[in-house]
């Protein structure tokens, strides 16, 4: 089930982090500085050393010169750590790489999530606490105190064999059936309001408090924060096809009924 900590000096695992999209509509550092100042209202920890992806897609076509060093330093001043650039044109690539930034071609299948993150960071918010920006990079477990969670990703169509739905940085709510051979993944918890087969992976970026809730569970595999359980001999008959939840207790996947109330 769960793997024991390895004794190797390095372990490689896939992990998912949440980053803010900083969508540039101007390449002028002074204008950006002014906008950020207004957005953060002078609160020094408005951004909490979050990762940022600089999206130049909107201005790249104009072939504007961009001073990457100034830009990165500027973001740093507001405690945003630029890690990558999205929407860059071919002639920008060398300059971007020279600054140690990665290129993100935005080929992720999670457009909905990114749009939300991008929107909340791009909106010019009135000073002070109007609304917090996109999520902090989820440092495993401890929920960041100053952030409002991203709204859950909601799916209303059946998730079919071979399809994969990933709710990045948030909960996943599915109102239609999840079929065998489908894979549903969330960094938060998973809720399914229809028969659930297939594979369900909650807490994909390591949140062990994530759970899986379903009205009628019969999954092939469930996983929470990387601890998984398969059901080779079938899902426990006394819990199948009825409301139940799945959570991580210690390093064990626990399945309990939601109807037999304590």
């Amino acid at each position: 089930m769960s793997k024991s900590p390895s004794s190797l000096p390095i372990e490689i695992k896939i992990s998912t982090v949440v980053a803010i999209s900083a969508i540039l509509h101007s390449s002028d550092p002074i204008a950006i500085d002014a906008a950020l100042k207004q957005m953060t209202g002078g609160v020094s920890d408005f951004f909490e050393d979050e990762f940022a992806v600089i999206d130049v897609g909107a201005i790249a076509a104009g072939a504007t010169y961009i001073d990457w060093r100034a830009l990165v330093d500027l973001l740093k001043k507001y405690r945003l750590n630029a890690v990558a650039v999205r929407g860059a044109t071919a002639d920008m690539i060398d300059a971007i790489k020279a600054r140690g930034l990665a290129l993100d071609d935005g080929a992720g299948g999670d457009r909905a999530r990114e749009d939300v993150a991008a929107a909340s960071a791009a909106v010019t918010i009135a000073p002070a606490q109007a609304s917090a920006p996109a999520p902090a990079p989820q440092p495993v477990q401890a929920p960041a105190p100053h952030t409002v969670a991203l709204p859950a990703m909601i799916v209303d169509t059946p998730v079919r064999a071979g399809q994969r739905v990933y709710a990045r940085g948030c909960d996943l709510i599915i109102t239609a059936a999840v079929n065998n051979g489908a894979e549903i993944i969330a960094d938060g918890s998973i809720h399914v309001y229809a028969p659930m087969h297939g594979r369900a992976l909650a807490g994909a970026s390591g949140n062990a408090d994530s759970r899986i809730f379903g009205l009628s569970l019969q999954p092939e595999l469930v996983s929470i924060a990387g601890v998984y359980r398969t059901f080779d001999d079938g899902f426990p008959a006394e819990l199948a096809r009825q409301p139940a939840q799945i959570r991580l207790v210690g390093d064990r996947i626990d399945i309990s009924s939601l109807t037999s109330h304590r």
Partner: protein
Amino acid sequence: MARIIVVTSGKGGVGKTTSSASFSTGLALRGHKTAVLDFDVGLRNLDLIMGCERRVVYDLVNVVNGEATLNQALIKDKHCDNLFILPASQTRDKDALSEDGIERVLNELVKMDFEFIICDSPAGIEHGALMALTFADEALIVTNPEVSSVRDSDRILGIIQAKSRRAQTGGEPVKEHLLITRYSPKRVENDEMLSYQDVQEILRIPLIGIIPESESVLHASNQGNPAIHFKGTDVAEAYEDVVARFLGEERPLRFTNYEKPGLLQRLFGTK
């Protein structure tokens, strides 16, 4: 407005070509100008089932490659004046189909005033199947009441939702219809087969018809006549129901209950 309908299933041997042949014939018999295209390049079967294999000169690949015109390649059905068959090539492979080429052929068929264009998909989820479903407005998902067929149908539904032109351009989604074939109420009764309710429970798309398992399908294929022509058989009637429902008529589901052979059936017989 022409409607392009893909007949697909993921799994092989479930009755796609049989259904394409009978469905297109049924539409034509009701007076609609219909074309049926065999996308199973390399394994062509449709012309056999339609009984026109000896009249094949040019095929879909020739038309896609511009080596023949549509008028040269379309074969008029031997029974219906307004049914035309575009056979697949026997000698090429499925990669010979290009998306641009298919689009051009379909557009040309639309210009020729075809009301219904039926695309008989090959099995699998590779290039040929993708080409058959890319331009579909509607899809007939042919499924046998058996777990692997249902799983493959589920998979192909997901692909239609992701890869069809309508999905890619954010248009209205492809309209999906579930067609259950080779249904045996007796085996359902004995728990040897999934019931149509079970299948629908998993796939969750509207049911357009149930075709009972029958030897008449084999007879029909061997003779090169679509099963819908065999008047009085349950299969022909079931396909007629499918066509009627597709055209918006209400028809009650038939051939879903197993009745132990009783006196009446012994007197009148069902075969």
